[in-house]
């Protein structure tokens, strides 16, 4: 039994599967963006080849740079990002790690992941990396509130702080009954805001000022090379996958039928597979929305990023949050 549990953490739906899915979802994102821009896009598994190539490259460090931070922080980034993926309910109604209040831990881990890029940038001692690190931390601060409030809005809407319960409750609210149609308005506002914040957390267009390629070369990751850069890249890919997985779980929910049939002795494996495929499709939908926003919005300067996130996204999130509270108060519209 121990071995089965260990393998579930390592292989399915554990670290190795999520690692591959992250690379695949990064390919899907790049392919979708390319097709929307009328390009042909990268061939399948291109991120895997990219990472394999980078792993074989030589590593170099600037003289005055902090070796320990530049060498180990990208690896820690991957660890943190993979830890977030363990909370996503991939093959059932709950993720590998699931406990009351896990949403809070996930929000903390997302912030931790975002702040690591600042330390890598400043440890590299390069004007470009320091500039990129400053921008990264500006973006991180600006997107932190909309992202957290967006996720917290779903917690308030469903009355629980556990990701598994939120996703089940969302399914119950929106797919099982028509009573809560009015909740769709704040739900939609929160979804759009969280999608924008996710693009910021993954440093993708339109919030890619932190590693603007043609302006400050590659931002905070200029001085990374070889395996260090490969790990930083993997962390980005896993971050994109984990955040889109979280949005899929929290906003689109997991089908409640899965849980009901599992209790009546239905084949566990088939249910797991169906749940897994549903989740992959949902993550695909989220990636499509992310790619759509990234393509249709032009790249923003750092001052425009803070402006958009603080004066457009954050107020709309707060309004949606207020709407949820008003609708949800005892004796309110839903009661």
């Amino acid at each position, binding site marked *: 039994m121990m071995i089965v549990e260990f393998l579930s953490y390592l292989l399915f739906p554990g670290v190795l599967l999520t690692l591959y899915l992250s690379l695949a979802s990064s390919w899907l994102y790049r392919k979708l963006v*390319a*097709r*929307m*821009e*009328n*390009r*042909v*896009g990268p*061939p399948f598994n291109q991120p895997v080849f990219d990472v394999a190539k980078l792993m074989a490259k030589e590593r170099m460090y600037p003289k005055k740079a902090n070796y320990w931070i530049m060498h180990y922080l990208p690896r820690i980034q991957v660890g943190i990002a993979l830890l977030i993926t363990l909370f996503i309910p991939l093959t059932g109604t709950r993720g590998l790690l699931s406990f009351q209040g896990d949403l809070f831990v996930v929000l903390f881990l997302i912030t931790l992941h975002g702040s690591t890029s600042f330390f890598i940038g400043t440890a590299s001692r390069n004007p470009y990396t320091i500039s990129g690190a400053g921008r990264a931390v500006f973006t991180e601060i600006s997107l932190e509130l909309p992202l957290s409030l967006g996720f917290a809005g779903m917690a308030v809407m469903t009355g629980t702080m556990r990701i598994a319960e939120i996703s089940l409750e969302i399914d119950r609210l929106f797919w099982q009954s028509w009573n809560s149609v009015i909740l769709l308005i704040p739900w939609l506002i929160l979804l759009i805001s969280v999608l924008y914040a996710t693009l910021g957390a993954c440093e993708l267009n339109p919030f890619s000022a932190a590693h603007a390629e043609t302006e400050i070369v590659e931002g905070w990751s200029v001085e990374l090379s070889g395996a260090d850069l490969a790990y930083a890249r993997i962390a980005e890919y896993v971050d994109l996958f984990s955040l889109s997985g979280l949005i899929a779980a929290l906003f689109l929910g997991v089908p409640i039928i899965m849980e009901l049939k599992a209790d009546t002795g239905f084949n566990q494996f088939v249910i797991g597979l169906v749940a897994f495929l549903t989740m992959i499709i949902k993550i695909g939908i989220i990636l499509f929305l992310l790619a*759509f926003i990234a*393509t*249709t*919005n032009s790249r923003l300067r750092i001052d425009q990023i803070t402006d958009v996130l603080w004066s457009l996204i954050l107020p709309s999130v707060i309004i949606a949050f207020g709407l949820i509270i008003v609708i949800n108060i005892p004796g309110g519209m839903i009661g």
Partner: protein
Amino acid sequence: MKGNMFTAAKEAIRNLFRQPNTVMFPTEHVPLPEDFRGKPILTTDACALCSRCARVCPTNAITIEKEDKKTGTIKIDMGKCCYCGECENVCHFNAIKLSNNWLTASLDKESLIDTYRISEEV
């Protein structure tokens, strides 16, 4: 601003169902125009060793080593060639022609030099 975003959104969705403008490079290639100027190829049967091409070449990519009037070696250095097509224009015998081959990258300079042997028997 709003109008621009709407146009961009419409264009992005339309592009999804369109044939892409680019191709998957190493396996597919963009169709070349008819008068494309690629790697020069020499037909040794037609060459009369008149040296016009070597004289007209602006980068001195073509060198001719004559042994006698009808025997010799022509070397075309692809590292120097600028694909101007002057040699093709000046050749009276249509011996040198610019082909459609444009994948001429190499790892060493020696393999970039094409050597053609012109002998009397031909």
